[in-house]
């Protein structure tokens, strides 16, 4: 085996039940490079890396590390081989300090097994300075930002002597500036002789940071390209990832906004622990425009939406739809006032997974005269409704009227939710992270649906953590930070750096 490869995975296959997640995938990662693993959601990227990290066992194939055959049966073995992995969801103890978290499982001790924190802190400082990740070893995890937590995870791996670092979707939780910092850190790591593998579906970052990129699609190996090569750009990568030409940027006509139909004035909302999350927030949406709320997760978006949908009570302020106050009224009243919502968590709020598609499509309008006369459901109308919507929104499989929502793919489940909510023809459509976990084709569909709604002269409120989505789809951007709107921007006159700065709490000159 070629010793230039830090990691070499040969025709790896993996089954989950009857589903073949990986089908003979190859991955060769040169030493001292940043290697991107690109694929859509569900393509098998994470599965492949989990095999490398010993979380899963491959059903077929071999792994070579530094040219030698390796048998990685669990993460402990992987760590011994010098592999470290930072998961998308961090695995940290919330009320431990950073130093405690980093040494967890590999504590250095003085005599009589007394933990020697000073040594650990010294080491953290040293590593931090070397790779540009300065953290305060005494701070508790629950008190530090998400990007710091990520640094802690990386430091934890390095502390354990990782030579090859796997980062699973590391940029999903970061602002643009923090992403730049992370890329900087990755370069420092490779200069120091380490190897970095990043799992991602963000093309821009690959172009910006990676040396090589391996593309997998639906569990199949597609290609490995040198990112520095001519002809490798976002479009060519996207094409390989999806398997067909895709439009990365949505085409839309300029918005023709009319009167204000929706307003939030001085809204205050507490979270379940009684902490103020939305602080004196005001915004408005006009008919015929898409207002995008940009912000990093955890800046009050969830509480804003909960108050807006009636799931939680606001502590102050007003929510007005067409001049009518609806704050602190139950969800059905808010719906009756023509606010429809595509929820962030479609499994929890959007669908009843054990109901069939017919039932899911009338979940909030089962009592409407069309579907029921006072007491009894009109089964035929309910079925016809489903049939029409399945056709109109191209929900697949095409005859899924009586299939359980559980049996549909994520994209089609989302289409069911969107079909139901848009069919209400609401004055205001609220879409929260509407493309989360969807593949490129489905994302295109969702964006087009939102724009179509706008073109019909309706108001749309889009809340998303994906800055690209906000910039692409919105007609106006409000940035939320720490429960307040900190900027009102025109997407055609701003850029992601400016928005990113606001998202991180900075100010624009």
């Amino acid at each position: 085996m070629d010793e230039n490869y830090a990691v070499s995975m040969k025709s790896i296959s993996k089954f989950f039940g009857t589903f073949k997640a990986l089908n003979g995938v190859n991955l060769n990662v040169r030493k001292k490079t940043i290697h991107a693993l690109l694929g859509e959601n569900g393509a098998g990227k994470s599965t492949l890396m989990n095999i490398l990290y010993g979380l899963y066992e491959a059903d077929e194939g071999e792994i070579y590390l530094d040219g030698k055959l390796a048998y990685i049966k669990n993460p402990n073995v992987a760590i011994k081989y010098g592999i470290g992995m930072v998961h998308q969801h961090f695995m940290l103890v919330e009320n431990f300090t950073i130093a405690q978290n980093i040494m967890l499982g590999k504590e250095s001790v003085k005599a009589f097994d007394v933990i020697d924190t000073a040594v650990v802190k010294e080491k953290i400082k040293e590593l931090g300075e070397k790779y540009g990740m300065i953290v305060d070893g005494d701070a508790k995890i629950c008190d530090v930002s998400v990007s710091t937590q990520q640094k802690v995870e990386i430091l934890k791996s390095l502390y354990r002597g990782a030579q090859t670092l796997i980062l699973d979707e590391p940029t999903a939780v970061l602002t643009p500036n923090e992403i730049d910092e992370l890329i900087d850190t990755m370069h420092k790591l490779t200069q120091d002789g380490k190897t970095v593998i990043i799992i991602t579906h963000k093309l821009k970052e690959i172009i910006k940071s990676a040396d090589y990129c391996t593309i997998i699609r639906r569990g199949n190996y597609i290609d490995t390209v040198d990112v520095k090569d001519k002809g490798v750009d976002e479009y060519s990568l996207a094409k390989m990832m999806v398997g067909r030409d895709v439009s990365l940027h949505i085409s839309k006509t300029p918005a023709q906004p009319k009167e204000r139909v929706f307003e939030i004035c001085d809204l205050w909302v507490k979270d379940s622990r009684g902490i103020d999350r939305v602080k004196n927030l005001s915004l408005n949406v006009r008919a015929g425009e898409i207002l995008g709320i940009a912000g990093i997760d955890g800046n009050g978006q969830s509480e804003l939406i909960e108050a807006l949908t009636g799931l939680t009570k606001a502590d102050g302020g007003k929510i007005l739809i067409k001049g009518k106050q609806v704050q602190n009224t139950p969800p059905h009243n808010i719906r009756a006032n023509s606010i429809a919502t595509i929820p962030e968590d479609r499994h929890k709020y959007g669908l009843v997974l054990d109901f069939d598609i017919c039932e899911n499509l009338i979940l909030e309008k089962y009592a409407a005269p069309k579907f029921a006369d006072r007491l009894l459901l009109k089964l035929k109308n309910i079925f016809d409704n489903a049939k029409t919507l399945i056709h109109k929104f191209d929900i697949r499989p095409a005859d899924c009227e009586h299939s359980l929502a559980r049996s549909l793919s994520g994209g089609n489940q989302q289409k069911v939710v969107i079909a139901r909510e848009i069919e209400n023809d609401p004055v205001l459509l609220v879409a929260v992270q509407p493309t989360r976990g969807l593949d490129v084709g489905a994302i295109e569909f969702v964006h087009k649906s939102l724009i179509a709604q706008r073109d019909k002269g309706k108001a749309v409120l889009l809340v998303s953590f994906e800055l690209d989505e906000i910039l692409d789809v919105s007609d106006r951007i409000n940035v939320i930070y720490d429960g307040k709107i900190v900027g009102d921007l025109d997407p055609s006159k701003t850029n992601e750096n400016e928005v990113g700065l606001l998202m991180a709490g900075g100010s624009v000159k």
Partner: protein
Amino acid sequence: MIDKIIEILKKPISAIIIALIVGFLVGFFVLLIAGYNPFEAYGAMIGGMFDRPKYISQIIINAVPIIMTGLSVAFAYRSGLFNIGAEGQYIIGTITAAMLGYYLHLPIIIHPIVILIAACFFGGVFGAIAGWLKVKYGTNEVVSTIMLNWIALYLNNTILSIPGVQKGGTQASYDILPSASMRLFSQWKTTPEGLSFINSHPILGDFLRTDIHIGIILTLIFVFATWFFLMRTTKGFELRSVGANPSAAEFAGISIKKNTVFAMFIAGALAALGGAFQVLGTSNSRIVVLSITEGFGWDGLSVALLANNNPLATLLSGWLFSGLKFGGGSIQSSMGAPSEIINIMIGAIVFCVALVAMFPMIATKLSAMKMKKEWQAKQDDKLASKGAAK
């Protein structure tokens, strides 16, 4: 071959049948270990169930209360609630029936109707308490209904301790008045014509020897009505949504709180009706001092479980459960096996049926293994052909 097994395992009905067979096998070994000839015992049991028309009719009669409590549990479950309180609600039904059946004086037909409505009301309110506690204070309904079971039991005993309620020299209340009875032909059966009819019609007459009552037909109606209510009405749709995904239901504008109280009211009413049927329809036409619960509510849990909480299926599972209990009694009488052994056997059968969910899982596992094998074979072929090409 494997395909066929997979297909069979995936069907819920075949899974239940297999579970029954496995259950009987386990019961077989239980009997064997206890030192009884299992063939003989099962023979006695089957005989005890089907030998005479009378037995069948008795099984159906015995099934009435447990179908009603099973229906209560299933209804609550479909609404997202675990109603352990069917026992207590059942007791409330028996108290209502026994008291109103004796102290209230009304013409026939009207008398039982009034009692049934009252039983629905009191049982419903009693059930709704648990729903209200959950909504208001977040008390888990499992805890509150268990407590309410004891409250019902001691309420029963307290009422019987009121001077004049207990019939002299007994531990029971007075029998209900004939006007309140739901029994069929009970007067006529004692007349000479009745007796001669029973004796001259071996099958029909044998049926008539048991306490057949209107409750049997009402149970059928309620089973169907409960199914219809859940599956075909808007209120049923609300309840099922709340049961299957409360978050999504709330998000869609359905009130969880109102529906929780309502669901517990209906569940309580159904179980109480079971109690009322028992008092008004069978020869247990009174309430007695209870030291422990009678177990109709607990049996209802098994019935609902066996029926996979499908209202229509509670009918079949109620009959099966009642049949096993009744037939099991014959093992006791004909072979002298203690009732504990029979209960273990019944328990084993119910337990196996409860594991039905396992069979589709086994099916998935089997088909996964099969796919993997096929795929590997294909890979081997590829390698072999490559090797040949070289």
